[in-house]
Structure formats: structure tokens, C-alpha cells
């Protein structure tokens, strides 16, 4: 069936809840309303209010209660309504979700998924355009996942729900309804921790994720007119990082561009540039370049285009690397 990302994610939740009675969903407006983006539509009707739970407005306790549920044997999918509000749950995420397995030497685990809409590009209100994935990528014990297609979205979410560790599942708002793709009806997993080459090429590797994948693809089209054929890698899982796939490509191509919409300084691009320079410096023919949002607060609608990496900007970056 051809599904958009919202439908693919919704189907993944339906199927996992059907398969496994331990899976429950909770969050603000996810039950009766079906979620402000309709991600959880139909779950309440199918699985009832004990498994599909509209919570009071309290992010810290949405995550904290999920941890407690996990301890008691459930596998909760918690929704944070927008990534801009996840900071309220930061202590529960860092101090507990990420650490409980180690703290208890394996006695307690936290198989929860924290889903949240992520990223800019839709001219949204303040705090509705966050891409602070790097905050989570640096916390030992957390996994961070970002799909860029409906197919991957379904498979990654199913894999995340089945994973034994806490997963921050970031859903690019801009891609929710950006297009449809053939998505198998049956449940399937897209393994966590594995990047994917989404466009083969040579002479240059572009690493991106989420809504920057279509941007990188468009940039590749642009430079293709000049006979430049970059390889594009979709990380898909940001933590733990699939360093091998990136390194293999960079060793082959000698040049690397990282694209992300988060601000540049201390973004995940820094880690990618750092480990590539650490392990493949002598194969690099040019400095690693990062095309990213600037080190500013994501602007409101009227200024957003200045901030959001465009295909043209990425194309310029590609040419710049090739010139250096």
C-alpha cells in the first residue's frame, strides 16, 4: 500500500499493539483526539483507554510514568507533543531512562519509545521547530532514531518498540505528509544502528538524516547537471552511530559534507566530522564541511528560510568541497 509517513507510523503502532499486549501508548491528546498530527488515530477505538492513554499536561511524568510501566513489564510508547517540550522531561530521560540498566546492573531495563515531532521547515510557532538531537546523542544509554521515508518510518518504529533500550524517536514534521511510498502491509523491522546509502555516487559523500535527506537529494540533482554525483547516506539511527558505513564511503570518496538543520556548533555534524577526521584523515582530500542551521534560535515563519538549509545551499557546499 502507498502510505505517507503518518500512516506508516500509525500502522506500525497498530500492528505492534496488536502483536504485543505489553505495548501501551500515552501522551497529551493522543487518544480521543488521535494526536495533534493524527499519528495515533484509531488506537483508542481499537485498544481502549487502558492502553491508549490521554495524560494530563506533564512531560516529565509522561516519561517518568513510562519508566515505571517498563519496570512493571510494559513497553510504553510515549508521545511528547513537540520536541520543544521534551526539555521538561530531560531529567527523567537522562537521569533515569538512560541509566537504569547500568544503575541496576541489568536488573531493570527501560524498553520505552519516546516519539516526538521534530524539525523545522513548516513555518511553525516558537518551540515547534526544534532539532536538538545532539542533546540526546551524547547521553550513554539512549538510542536516537530519525526516519526519512514512510518505509523506514514503519520499520524503524517497529524495531524501536521491540528494542530493549530507550529510544528517542524523532519524526520530521516536514516529512509527515510529504509523499507516499509503497509500504508492506506486514510488520517488519529496519534494524537500528544501520545507516543506508540512499544514492550511490562518487567523489563526495553527503551525510544527512530526516528532512535533510530530500534536501540532499535535490542538491544532488542540482549538481548532477554539472556532472557531479555525490553519494548520499541517510544515518537513520543517530545513536549509536553507524560509523562504519560513513567511514567506508568517505574512504572511497575522499570528501565529506554533513548536512543538518540543527545549529552548527556542537551539532551531531561535529561528531561526524571529528570521528572521520580521527579515523580517515589521510584519506580526506578536503576538510569536512558542515551545512547546517546557524547558531541562532530557529526563526519564526518570516525568517525561517534564512535558517533552513536549502538544496541550493547544500549544492553550493558540494561545489565548495570539490573546489578545495
Amino acid at each position, binding site marked *: 500500500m502507498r502510505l505517507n509517513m503518518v500512516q506508516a507510523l500509525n500502522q506500525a503502532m497498530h500492528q505492534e499493539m496488536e502483536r504485543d499486549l505489553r505495548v501501551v501508548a500515552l501522551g*497529551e491528546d493522543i487518544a480521543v483526539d488521535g494526536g*495533534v498530527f493524527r499519528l495515533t488515530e484509531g488506537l483508542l477505538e481499537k485498544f481502549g483507554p487502558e492502553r491508549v492513554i*490521554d495524560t494530563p499536561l506533564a512531560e516529565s511524568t509522561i516519561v517518568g510514568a513510562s519508566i515505571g510501566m517498563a519496570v512493571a513489564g510494559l513497553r510504553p510508547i510515549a508521545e511528547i507533543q513537540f520536541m520543544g517540550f521534551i526539555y521538561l522531561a530531560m531529567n527523567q530521560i537522562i537521569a533515569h531512562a538512560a541509566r537504569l540498566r547500568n544503575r541496576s546492573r541489568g536488573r531493570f531495563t527501560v524498553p520505552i519509545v519516546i516519539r516526538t515531532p521534530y524539525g523545522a521547515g513548516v513555518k511553525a510557532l516558537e518551540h515547534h521547530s526544534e532539532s536538538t538531537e545532539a542533546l540526546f546523542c551524547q547521553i550513554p544509554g539512549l538510542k536516537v532514531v530519525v526516519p526519512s521515508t514512510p518505509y523506514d518510518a514503519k520499520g524503524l518504529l517497529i524495531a524501536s518498540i521491540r528494542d530493549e533500550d530507550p529510544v528517542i524517536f524523532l519524526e520530521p514534521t516536514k516529512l509527515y505528509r510529504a509523499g507516499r511510498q509503497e509500504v508492506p502491509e506486514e510488520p517488519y523491522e529496519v534494524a537500528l544502528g544501520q545507516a543506508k546509502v540512499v544514492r550511490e555516487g562518487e567523489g563526495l559523500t553527503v551525510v544527512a538524516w530526516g528532512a535533510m535527506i530530500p534536501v540532499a537529494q535535490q542538491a544532488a540533482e542540482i549538481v548532477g547537471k554539472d556532472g557531479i554525483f555525490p553519494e548520499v547516506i541517510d544515518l537513520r539511527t543517530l545513536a549509536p552511530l553507524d560509523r562504519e558505513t560513513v567511514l567506508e564511503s568517505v574512504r572511497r570518496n575522499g570528501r565529506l559534507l554533513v548536512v543538518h538543520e540543527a545549529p552548527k556548533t556542537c551539532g551531531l555534524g561535529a561528531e561526524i566530522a571529528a570521528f572521520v577526521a580521527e579515523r580517515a584523515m589521510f584519506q580526506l582530500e578536503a576538510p569536512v564541511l558542515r551545512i547546517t542551521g546557524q*547558531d541562532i534560535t530557529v*526563526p519564526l515563519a518570516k*525568517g525561517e*528560510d534564512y535558517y533552513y538549509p536549502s538544496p541550493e545551499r547544500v549544492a553550493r557546499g558540494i561545489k565548495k568541497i570539490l573546489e578545495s
Partner: protein
Amino acid sequence: MIKDMFQVLTENGRAAPEREPKLPASDLQKLYSLMATTRAADLKALKLQRQGRMGTFAPSLGHEACQVGSAFALQPKDWVFPYFRDLGTYITLGFPLKNYYLYWMGNEEGMRIPADLNIFTISVPVGSQLPHSVGCAMAMKYKKEQAAALAYFGDGATSEGDFSEALNFAGVFKTPNVFICFNNQYAISTPVKRQTAAETIAQKANAYGFDGIRADGNDVLAMYILTREALEKARSGGGPTLIEAFTYRMGNHTTSDDASRYRKETEVNDWSRRDPIERFRLYLKDKGLWDESFEDRVQKEAEVLISKALEEAESTPPPRPEDLFIHTYKDMTPELNDQLAELRDLLKGGPR
């Protein structure tokens, strides 16, 4: 009847005489005009949003009395910490409607609050402005200013940790705070009885050692009186008060929401009989303070104000590249300068 609710005006506009505030006729008419202007400006925004001239925003329909009535009790030195559904508050305090429109059109320039207004910026994360209001009140106390800090928020906000922490601080430090909760029965789709098992929001104040009181939030006079009293108490060292304004969100949560998914039309109809403006109009009419020509004047004035604001907002240029950078820190850092230069260079290179 709603439990323990302070009311001056019944639903058909009759007043309990012993409760009526001693306000001059001009103030009563002013209250009406502020509410009517709020509604007109709100409906205008809704229209603009449908035309794509305004971004997503949270309509104030039904909140005119609790916004205007409470804000009318403020004095210039008092501070206000609004949330995202506070149009009537802004209008009452003389905040330029142009700014309000500008902000919801997606231009930060709208939140450059005029220097002579003690109004804080909108806090989008629910409840997160409450700690600010408490810190501000602590500062008022330390500076021995005869001023209070008033924070607005919804019923949903009472579930957030910041609500509890802030009210607890206010109790401990006996700060000059007034906390006004617009209990409009919903937080997006979540009805208040799924938000808290407490029978009233007002009773929550007890957990922090001060008074909570419930007002009819569709009764502009009730809101005015209770807020004025709470503010006076605050300014004179009597400590904080929590006011629950019992009201109803007549419109969708925001322009992106479809309330029919989670509430019945009969409920909305029920509440429309308690319309705050209608009720006050009957009261004024009884008092000989309202007639058709007054209504005409009010509506015309509102229209003029609104179209001027809209024109100004729409003719405001979008932010320049530097506008996004220069307010990150007091001074630009070398890195920001580089990034701005890069952006300018990019823009020179033609369309992005």
C-alpha cells in the same frame, strides 16, 4: 450551579447590587468596548488565518470577560505574564494590536514589547511563565515597589511541575503574585476532569498555603472585582492569590485544531448562552449605558483600530538576515559574524 463561584452578573445580565463594583459609567462602557474590540480583533485574525495571511494562533473567543475584566484591574507598575491565549489582556493594557498580529504572522518583532508596558513575552511552553512571575514578584518585594505580578494560564497548565513549584515559592516567600487560571474546560482535547481529580482548580492553592477562589470567568465584573482585590492584597504585603476563572473556550484550540473531534456541539451551544459580552450588554442596557448607537460607535472604533493594525503589520518588512543574529547575545560573536556573512553571501548568489 457551579461550586462556590463568585458571580456579579447572572447569565441574563442581572447584578447582585451589593456586589456591583463602584465603577463610573465611562469605565463600564470602556469594559464593554474592550471586550467588543477583543472579539472583533480575534475574529479578524481568524479570517486572516484562513486567507493565509496569518499563521496558526489560539483564538480568544469566549475569554473576553476573564481577560478584560482582570487586566482592567492592573496598574501601570504591575507586571503581567501572559500565555498564548490573551488577546483581551493585551488590548486592555494598550499593547499595540499591530504587534500582536505581527507575532502571529511569524515575525519576532511583534514581541518587542513597548518599553513603557510591563508585559512579558508570550510563553509557549505551558505553565513555564509561572516561575518568571514569581521571580518578578520577589524582585518587587526586594525593591519595595508597590507592584504585583499577574500570571495567566490555562487549566492544563496546572498539571505541569512549574505550576506547583511556582505557587509553592509564592507561598513560602509570600510574594505579591496573582495567579489567574482560565479554566476553559479543555486543554486541547483533554477535558478538565481528565486533567485533575481535584473538584476545583481554586482548591489547589491550599497546597501552597494561600487562598484560592473561583470566579465566573464569563462575568467581567466578577473578574474585575476579584482581580482588583487580589492585586491590592498582593501590593500591600498580603501574599499571593489563585483565581480560577471558570469559563469556556468557544473556538478551536488553535486554528490547526478541530474541536468537533472531541466535544459535543450541545455543550458548545450550552455555553454560548453564557456569552460574556452578551451578558454584559444586557446589564449595560438595563443601566441605560448601552444602545444601538453606542454599539455602532464601539464597532466602528474597533474596525478602525483593527484595520490600522493590520495595515501596519502587513507593511512591516520581514526580518533582515541580521535581525536573526544580533539578538543572540548582547554582542555578536566571531562565529555568528562568520555565519551571517555566509548567509549574506548566499543571498547575493540569488534565490535559495
